[in-house]
């Protein structure tokens, strides 16, 4: 490790000296005993990390990485998950950074197909987390997008809390559900995928037709759904059922901490996994790999629940509230990334035509 670092430092210094006062990032190719089959990987003194706009890493951890790696790190966050992947595809010829975090399983198929990622198998990924692994990319965190119910509302009205997707089209649950637009919201897309996983490519549109008949409301984004439409959050909206996360009930705990006023419907969950990857054509592949290893370090993994509301992929302690109020779904719905990649645009277009018109 030390020698590798030294070599690259020397190489970088040599290049920097050669370039003189030029402000361009100094980059070079350093021969290493590559484990991925490629003989050389690039390295530089600068690292550009591209993330989705929900990425959050505490300052002290950012500082820690900068100190340990000796790299001058720039973080850019040009949009949500979908926009992020599309921007990387658009800039394939001249990549906008070295390492990406925030590609989830609904976009990973497309990212890999388009060749915007260079394969990297992080040694920091424990064997127990291999279940999340996917070619080229490294899993960092995961979570479940589930319907949430305002349990207080249901108790007051004397109606049973629904448990399955089938329940939602029953007359007693008319006009109670609010979802987000899959075209513009990632939980919305996840919930659409959940229905496709459950009802099949040929059945999901009929199911949505039934949801529409039963008064489902569609809003643009998650915060609008959760804060203004949902009755269980601060906004005290009119609808007691909402698309949100399995972890959301941990944020609606009563003051005495004994219970949560909302509950996630674990039979309606879609599993979301977020990945990091080395961007193809990166100026600093070595730094990119180090950053991915860092994301899997215990410090970062432990900070993920608090900062990004997701579950870490490695085995670290979870916040106490989560243990109690935010269990994961045992039977979350899934679809293979390639299948999502092939179907996503068609599904959202057909969904839009059916539900919004």
């Amino acid at each position, binding site marked *: 490790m030390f020698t590798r670092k030294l070599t690259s430092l020397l190489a970088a210094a040599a290049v920097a000296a050669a370039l003189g006062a030029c402000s*361009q990032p100094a980059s070079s190719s350093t021969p290493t005993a590559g484990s991925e089959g490629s003989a050389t990987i690039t390295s530089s003194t600068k690292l*550009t990390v591209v*993330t989705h*706009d*929900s*990425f*959050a*890493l*505490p*300052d002290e951890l*950012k500082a820690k990485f900068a100190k340990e790696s000796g790299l001058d790190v*720039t*973080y*850019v*966050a*040009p*949009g949500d998950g*979908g*926009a992020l992947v*599309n*921007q990387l*595809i*658009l*800039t394939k*010829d*001249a990549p*906008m*950074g070295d390492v990406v975090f925030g590609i989830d399983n609904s976009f990973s198929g497309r990212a890999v197909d388009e060749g915007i990622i260079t394969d990297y198998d992080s040694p920091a990924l424990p064997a127990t987390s291999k279940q999340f692994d996917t070619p080229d990319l490294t899993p960092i965190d995961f979570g479940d997008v589930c319907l949430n119910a305002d349990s207080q509302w249901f108790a007051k009205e004397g109606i049973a809390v629904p448990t399955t997707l089938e329940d939602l089209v029953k007359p007693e649950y008319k006009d109670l559900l609010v979802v987000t*637009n899959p*075209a*513009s919201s990632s939980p919305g897309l996840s919930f659409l995928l959940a229905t496709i996983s459950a009802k099949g490519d040929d059945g999901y549109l009929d199911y949505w037709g039934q949801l529409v008949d039963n008064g489902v409301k*569609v*809003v*643009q*984004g*998650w*915060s*609008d759904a*959760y*804060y*203004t*439409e949902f009755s269980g*959050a*601060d*906004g*005290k*909206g*009119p609808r007691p059922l909402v698309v949100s996360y399995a972890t*959301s009930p941990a*944020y609606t705990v009563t003051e005495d901490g004994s219970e949560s006023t909302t509950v996630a419907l674990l039979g309606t969950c879609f599993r979301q996994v977020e990945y990091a990857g080395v961007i193809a054509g990166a100026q600093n592949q070595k730094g990119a790999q180090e950053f991915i290893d860092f994301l899997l370090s215990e410090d970062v993994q432990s*900070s993920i629940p*608090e*900062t990004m*509301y997701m579950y870490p992929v490695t085995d670290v302690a979870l916040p106490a509230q989560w243990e109690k109020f935010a269990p994961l779904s045992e039977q979350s719905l899934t679809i293979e990334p390639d299948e999502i990649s092939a179907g996503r*645009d068609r599904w959202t277009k057909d969904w839009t*035509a059916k539900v*919004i018109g």
Partner: protein
Amino acid sequence: MDQGLDREGHRLIRRLGAPLAGRAAWVVAGAVPALFLAVFFLVPVANLVLRGFHDGGSWTLAGFSEVFSAPRTWRILWFTLYTATLATAACVALGLPVAYLLHRCRFPGRGLLRAIVAVPFVLPTVVVAVAFGSLFNPGGLLEFLQLKESYLAILLALCFFNVAVIVRTTGSVWSRLDPRLGQAAQVLGASPLRTLWTVTLPALGPAIAAGASLVFLFCSTSFGIIMVLGGVKYSTLETEIWYQTTQLLDLRAAAALSVTQLVIVSGSLLASTALQRRTQQSLRLHVDDSAEHPLSPARDWFALSVTTLVVSVLLVLPMANLVIRSLRRDGQWTLQNYANLATTGSSGALSVPVWQAVWNSAWIAAVACVIAVTMGVLVSLVASRRPRNRGGRLSLTLLEGAFLLPLGVSAVTVGFGYLITLNRGPLDLRSSLVLIPIAQALVALPLVVRSLLPALRAIDPRQLEAARALGSSGWQVLRRIELPHLVRGLGLAVGFALATSLGEFGATSFLSRPDNPTLPVVIYRLFGRPGPDNYGMALAASALLACVTAIVMGAAEQARGKGVSTW
């Protein structure tokens, strides 16, 4: 003898050379902003749009036939035009009485009222959407009106923004309209209504039309309002371009839509520019005396009641409601939301405290303002030349028009254009913060030019000719006559540049980095995060941003020279 000839020759050269050098200086003065516009706007946008017309092998217009064979496109196009037309009509109807009252009547508190009317135009869309949302959403003051996600809410928000444009364009003309025309009509027996209809409105016609075409432009390209208040039901060309580009990466569809939008926008810009020029010319015919009279409730009751309604319900209520909401928590009055601005929000919503974002916004706005005003001064000086030949006039019209184009191109197109254009060598600025003030300056530039140019065009050509005839050099004319005129519009230009930059969200959200967000970016982010702390901070930060913007615009209105700016 030789010496005498030599001296004569020098004099000749100087006399012939001066205009030549002068002309060269003007070409350079025009080239600098033109280059800026080309590098940071025209080339990136063209680069992205042209990709949509190239399928890898050859040029194709397949995008057009594909997009326009979809009924959805026609629905969106129709909705965009229909909404913009309706909102424009409403702005004219509401704006004219306000313009009359604020520019034709004299009464105490008029300055304050003018500032209140001027502010909404530059408020950040994020803040306005939040303010209207908190009014109509469940628990809001006007919840009972059932306007959440309604068409009317969109129209109201569009009017909120744009009434000021009508008031501004028509007001300044109205205040200089020769009152004797109307008096003559009334002496001849015309009723006040008839006078208004047959004398005043026709005289104001070009100004109203110029303002209306601007409002139409702003309404047809509105993004944030439709996205936040429109829910999922309503899409405009602008939101559809965003969706096709960022979410589907369907560049063909996006390009076809962008070109369509550009056609619409250029049309209204051309109309507005031509009409604005006509007003400026016709203005010279009128006396520059103030035609104001003291407000008389008996006579001005109509304008007075419309203005009261517009100001209190349409303009003040949403903002006051926002401020009040930001000061309340769990049914109690508190400053907690403001105190929290020193934090990063609950559960790590932000990477930096909100005050840090305030500081970022401040320095970015300062830089953007310097860029926009420098470029704006150059553009205005060049565009206000009065060349005698047709070619010269045409190229100046094109120059002026080109700098208004950023108004009509979506931020997404510019942002994605940067990604594939500014990607190599010293121009690889994609992760550089420099792009933020540059992009904001581009957005502000049209407003800056519109604030400066009228002041220059209002110079009586006879004054310039007289100065030249009396032997002043071009440089002296510039320094003694034109620059002082320009300075009168400068306060307003600086105000617009600062306010636009402070509130800019579309392009900034693309370009800002998580550790260097601006205030609108932070507000947007806080709203997307769970927890009452974050929601309260978003309200407080919105109120703060609205106040700062209001102060900046208020100061600019004060600094504005009398009678400048007809736009």
